[in-house]
């Protein structure tokens, strides 16, 4: 099969809407199709990676565990925007999985190299 570069751009907070969760389902499928998958988190999307989700009180399924499964699917290119972290008072220590931190301009260059950019 043809292999393409798929980037998933996540700019929305988790739980307030389902986009983060349903987006993750596409990521796993793209990985199963052996595509060259990367994920970029910017703006409120960085909150998806914040560790310690306890969703029992809102009775919504937590998906933090699924982030842990990304490595099993060989999804290891997890890019995070530095400015978005800083604006929200977050550092990489707050995040649930290892990431690479980039400036917005560097992320722009990575986006430009993609074949397909899916944003949710």
């Amino acid at each position, binding site marked *: 099969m043809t292999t393409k570069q798929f980037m998933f751009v996540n700019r929305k907070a988790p*739980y307030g809407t389902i986009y983060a969760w349903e987006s993750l389902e596409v990521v796993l499928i793209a990985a199963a199709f052996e595509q060259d998958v990367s994920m970029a988190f910017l703006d409120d999307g960085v909150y998806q990676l914040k560790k310690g989700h306890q969703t029992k009180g809102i009775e919504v399924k937590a998906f933090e565990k699924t982030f842990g499964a990304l490595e099993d699917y060989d999804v290891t290119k997890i890019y995070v925007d530095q400015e978005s972290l800083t604006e*929200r008072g977050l550092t990489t220590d707050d995040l649930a999985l290892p990431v690479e931190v980039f400036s917005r301009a560097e992320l722009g260059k990575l986006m430009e190299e993609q074949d397909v950019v899916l944003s949710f």
Partner: protein
Amino acid sequence: MLHIINKSPYDRPAFYSALKTGEGAILLIEDGVYAAAKGGVAEAKLKAATDKFKFYALTADLEARGIADRVVDGVTLVNYAGFVDLVAEYKTNQSWL
């Protein structure tokens, strides 16, 4: 009156818009609870408004987002029962959708 905010201050103007209306109580729910997290740009805005507004945040939404342990001082945590009590307490409420 009671202002109910369910939007992240980093994604929508709802929180800052409500702050400009003057005074009363602000309840942060859903993605609105990010306004109550320490260390972010929104913290200073919230603190600067504590003389005009009482601030509340829904515990279940803070926990879901992993920020229950970093709530800005001066924000009172409430559960859904507390949410109901706040609505009962104030004659008028408004959801800033």
